[in-house]
């Protein structure tokens, strides 16, 4: 069984909880006192991840770190549909890789601003907010043009992929870092769609959506 080293308020940990819930993968949690205890910097955790970051998983002895990397692993290993990380579609894989890197950018900006406001991290919050707005403009434009051709998801497929999961949490939590999403209506609509994926679960700070309209 998969063990997830987890912090409840971490959007990166939530990405994995979310995907595992959608895929119906069983897992157990080891709660890590990331804040205020800084347990991720403890000797035990540094042995699992020398970078001193969460999340980490242990899947029967296979230890992996980094949210995006673990999304790749979980989808490739456990998604029978092959939709979340389509191994035999190189163009789509390239696109997914591109947006996973984009998700890292969101972490470096929107998540950083949230850590500043909520957990008092000492960093240049104005720069973090400005960086997040730059990325959100790109994402909103991308999603808006997608909508014009009937595409609901980040990548060019008729179903969501792990790139949607990778970008979702810190976009939806951005207001905790003082980053409003009011100017990004296409992002707000996409957020509703992700919330309606079967198996979706929430985390603290993210509310569920209501049911879609029956067609």
């Amino acid at each position: 069984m998969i063990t997830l080293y987890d912090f409840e308020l971490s959007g990166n940990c939530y990405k994995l909880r979310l995907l595992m819930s959608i895929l119906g993968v069983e897992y157990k949690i080891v709660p890590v006192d990331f804040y205020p205890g800084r347990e991720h910097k403890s000797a035990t955790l540094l042995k699992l991840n020398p970078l001193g970051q969460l999340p980490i998983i242990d899947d029967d002895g296979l230890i992996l770190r980094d949210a995006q990397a673990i999304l790749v692993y979980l989808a490739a290993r456990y998604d029978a549909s092959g939709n979340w990380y389509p191994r035999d579609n190189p163009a789509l894989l390239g696109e997914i890789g591109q947006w996973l890197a984009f998700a890292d950018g969101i972490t470096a900006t929107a998540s950083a601003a949230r850590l500043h406001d909520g957990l008092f991290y000492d960093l240049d919050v104005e720069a973090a907010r400005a960086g997040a707005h730059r990325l959100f403009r790109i994402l909103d434009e991308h999603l808006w043009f997608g909508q014009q051709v009937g595409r609901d998801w980040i990548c060019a497929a008729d179903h969501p992929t792990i790139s949607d999961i990778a970008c979702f949490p810190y976009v939806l939590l951005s207001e905790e870092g003082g980053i409003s999403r009011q100017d990004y209506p296409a992002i707000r609509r996409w957020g509703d769609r992700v919330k309606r994926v079967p198996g979706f679960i929430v985390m603290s700070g993210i509310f569920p959506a209501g049911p879609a309209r029956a067609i």
Partner: protein
Amino acid sequence: MSSHPWHPIAASHDLPFRHVFHGQLFGREFAVWRADDGYVNVWENRCLHRGVRLSIGVSDGRELKCQYHGWRYSNRTAGCTYIPAHPADAPARTITNRTFPAEERYGLVWSSLEEAAALPRVAGLDDANLLVLRGMPLNAPAALALAHLADYRFQPNNAIDSKEALVSIEAAEGFSIALRARSGSQETLAVFFVQPVDSSRSVIRGVLDRNAEGMVRNTILRHHNERLSALRDRVEREAAALPAAPPIEPVYESVAPELAEMPSLSASGRRAAITVQVARKWMTANDIAGFELRPIRGLLPTFQPGAHIDVHLPNGQIRQYSITNAPGETDSYTIGVKRERDSKGGSSCLHETVREGDLLAISEPRNNFPLRRDAVKTLFIAGGIGITPLIAMAQALSHMSLLSELHYFAQDETQLAFPERLATLGRALTSHLGLNPQATAAKLAELLVDYRPDMHAYLCGPAPMLEVARRIAAEKGWPDASVHFEYFKNTKAIDDSSSFEIALARSAVTLRVPAGSTILEVMRGNGIDMPSSCEQGACGTCVATVLEGEPDHQDVYLNDAEKRSGTKIMTCVSRACSARLVLDL
């Protein structure tokens, strides 16, 4: 600056069903949502209860639910229909969120901070053939964006790759500017509306005078998006160098004074507050006519499931009818009227005299039969035309995916009213046809057999059936507080032979109620306002709180426990056993 107060606040494509859009105009935020019936709601972005943004709430297509305490606000009226913290109470009708005008035109959603005359036409734009550009939000005042738009350069739709077009200003008015691009024989009109979001934020919303299909359409949209992005960057650089104006602080309207404290009784009597038109009249079942009542102007007030209206008939009579509508269905009220053989004129007047197109006066909806929505299971038991309040309730619970059963007792299939509404209930509906009184009692005993805590039952039907049900429910261990009745009318003979004194504690007056007069009549005669509706002890509108004295209950509204407690009285029929009653009025 502008000759009219209308501004676009969203694009039509920003409002898919079940989404709540977050808009803003001159600093005032909006929650904007399209109901399943297509109606666009533009509301103050603030729950009246604790100020939480409604744009983080949930639209269920009929109502918007606040994320904080689950308060539900109805499509169109923005009236609060349910306060989950107090499931037994009907929310005061005046708990209504602030709404703003909404108009959909040119692919945009328009609103205004003030009541406004009609949205003016824009020369050169035709709703049937246009292309809405991606809205371009910018961190700059609207005036700066407008100034730069005068120099905006673009290509006509069919000449995106041709040599740079000539662009001329065709019109400029208020917050909009119309530009025409010409290249060879091709030309396109682009009208830009700049939405003043706040003192230093705005959105450029562009509309082209011609649609396009497929790849060309995409190319055109990208062409403008690129050029508008470049324009945005220039405007924002310029704005960044200016001293920043502080954000506009919107002033929120105060809530009504009566809502600042817990609600007391609202005024008053049997007033015909609203004029409606019979938009449709049809036979929904044998001997039962359906009437769809639409407002002559404006919106109908918010209703809650279980609510009734007084209908003032052309023959001068006043009758009560339950609203059968589902939540959020707020463009009309639908009532069902059974032709009564022993009619004193009410039902026959509606059946025979009133026709489609006629005007009727009705009261505001009143809810003396409120529906709790905190039951683990709810039973609805309807006899005949008693279906009308229960069908509204069953639709409300069904819509919230709460467990309920509707048992509909009728003579035969042809007596089942509102089949199209019943169909939406699916398996929650069971009809019981052609049962005689004994069989009805046996069926009721079966239905009421299995009381568990947190179950509630609502019954409406003929008095004999309700009396049987009341007895069975008591035998099966249902507490009075869990069984709710609504009688069509009070069939008991009223004994008004007593005479007694009433003291109105808050008004500090004492009045004599002689034999042959009611408490209500005596109070009215002395200028004391009291709402009422059926005036026969069935509907619950004229209830008063008893502080001292022993009431002589003659109504069918209060349940046995309420009657025993002696703390409430229906002032239209009930009287006093003691020489004196002190009422909290």
